[in-house]
């Protein structure tokens, strides 16, 4: 139905309120987010013997969220996102081995170096689209891997980077073998970055990213050239991946060359799709699910567990794009008798 415009364009204040309310609803905390963060905090008390594993899963979660900003929101795929994770890890690692072991300085340095690397790469990536974008990110990943592999005086090469001297957090809390300090440190950092990512996706910039995902060709017709948005998204995403890498290096005090590996770039994609794209919390949930799944499957079937990861991935994808988060939301909505959105 097409309607004639109302003369004078009068509108009621009440409906202006509903328009504003739409954006408040979009930005409101969803129950799955609240449940996730409460459970994540509670896991410190529930699983005191598994803190190291949980911390690593949460760090992977941050890494997946960083990809979600790019892939889930802006629709920019990446097969080389591990490059920025690895750059963050090696920056923090080399800093702690050779100069300065303060974990917070390592974190900031990891974010900065990965962010700068991301900004440089974004100048290439933002000019491309589709498969070309995918191939360039893949190329960046492979290049970084081989640089770290060859430059073993700096990185330790194939043997990994050892000898990091991480000083106590804030000069007070020494990283313990049970991973208590590591857990709390990582939890706080990851939660703060999650809040920042939330703010970003609910900003005008975040809306522009969704516009790029939904119809990049329409954007110039709105006056939006998209290159600035793509470059900024790529840079922020890279910096966030860098923080995740730095966290892993600092909490494990060792860096394996595989932090830069193609496998890790693919893992993070799988975890994102599993958890659900474009919701942020899906990235966290996907990372935990993937970590637990891999852990359990590899016990049960040490040689063939990838078969089941593939199978589960196929099943989840066939239920829609919401991943595990979407499935959970549909179940709860049905139980509560609500119509799902």
């Amino acid at each position, binding site marked *: *139905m*097409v*309607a*004639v*415009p*109302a003369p004078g*364009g*009068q*509108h009621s204040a009440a*409906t*202006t309120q*509903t*328009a*504003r309310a*739409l*954006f*408040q609803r*979009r*930005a409101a905390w969803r129950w799955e987010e609240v449940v996730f963060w409460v459970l994540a905090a509670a896991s410190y008390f529930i699983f005191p013997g598994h803190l190291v594993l949980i911390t690593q899963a949460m760090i992977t979660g941050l890494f997946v969220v960083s990809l979600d900003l790019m892939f889930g929101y802006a629709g920019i795929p990446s097969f080389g996102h591990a490059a920025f994770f690895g750059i963050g890890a090696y920056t923090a690692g080399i800093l702690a081995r050779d100069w300065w072991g303060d974990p917070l300085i390592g974190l900031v340095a990891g974010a900065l170096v990965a962010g700068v690397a991301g900004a440089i790469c974004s100048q290439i990536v933002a000019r491309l689209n589709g498969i070309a974008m995918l191939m360039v990110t893949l190329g960046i990943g492979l290049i970084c891997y081989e640089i770290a592999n060859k430059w073993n005086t700096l990185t330790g090469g194939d043997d990994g980077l050892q000898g990091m001297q991480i000083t106590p957090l804030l000069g007070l809390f020494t990283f313990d073998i049970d991973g208590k300090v590591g857990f709390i440190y990582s939890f706080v950092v990851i939660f703060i970055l999650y809040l920042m990512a939330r*703010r*970003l996706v*609910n*900003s*005008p*910039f*975040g*809306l*522009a990213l*969704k*516009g790029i995902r*939904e*119809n990049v*060709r*329409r*954007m*110039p*017709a*709105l*006056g*939006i*050239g998209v290159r*600035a*948005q793509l470059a*900024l998204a790529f840079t*922020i995403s890279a910096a966030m991946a860098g923080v995740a890498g730095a966290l892993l290096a600092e909490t494990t005090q060792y860096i394996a060359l595989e932090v830069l590996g193609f496998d890790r770039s693919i893992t993070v994609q799988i975890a994102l799709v599993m958890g659900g794209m474009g919701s942020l919390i899906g990235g966290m949930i996907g990372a935990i699910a993937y970590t637990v799944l891999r852990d359990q499957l590899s016990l049960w079937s040490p040689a063939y567990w990838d078969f089941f990861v593939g199978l589960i991935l196929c099943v989840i994808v066939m239920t829609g794009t919401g991943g595990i988060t979407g499935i959970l939301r549909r179940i709860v909505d049905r139980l509560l008798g609500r119509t799902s959105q």
Partner: protein
Amino acid sequence: MTAETVLETERLNRSFGALRVTQDVSFKLPRGARYALIGPNGAGKSTFINLLTGVLKPSGGRIKLHGEDITRAPAQDRVRRGLVRTFQINTLFPHLTPLEATVLAIAQRHGLCVNPFKRLSGCHAEIDEAHELLDRFQFGADGERPTHELAYGRQRLLEIVLALAARPKVLLLDEPAAGVPQKESAEIFEALAALPDDIAVLFIEHDMDVVFRFAQRITVLVAGQILCEGTPDEIADHPQVREVYLGDGEDV
């Protein structure tokens, strides 16, 4: 009405290989105009719009907006300078609501689209303006439903709303009522006729009733060339137009 020209092309050319789809098109659109561009299928009407908006690069000739040469300007720059279009085939954001898409266009005008810190829910000026614009086209609750769920006619209107959200000085409408039933198409054109006087409008349309009712002047494009220009009466009486376009029975 002043005859100040806002959009002008000088001997605009475009070739696809040996095929010349736009040939020496020199065209002027004055401020506040309601002009129509007609011609048989394949005459190069959409190509002309694509050249004007920067989707295609011309092989030769010049385009001027407010007297400034924009021949090489990127598409988004032309929009920022007030040259805005709609698309013949809906080119929308399927999973965004019309409200979000309209806010996006307005936020861009306000230079907010690279701001990751500002809360969207706090952008009251942009949200209110978007709501008002959608309200003018009586979107009602449809403004808050995902675009892909909307009826086709509504989506056609959203094309126009998004263009208006960019505050055009020149509005290029590529078959704004394409695929819409005749009664609703008349309503779309009533809406366009009611646009502020300072917006110049050039529209492509196949329905001759609509063209003759709403256009002040008509340009007839055939095989990439301007066949003739004139008032609706002049065009209706033009022997070549009757022969080439109206006479072949297409869309009359």
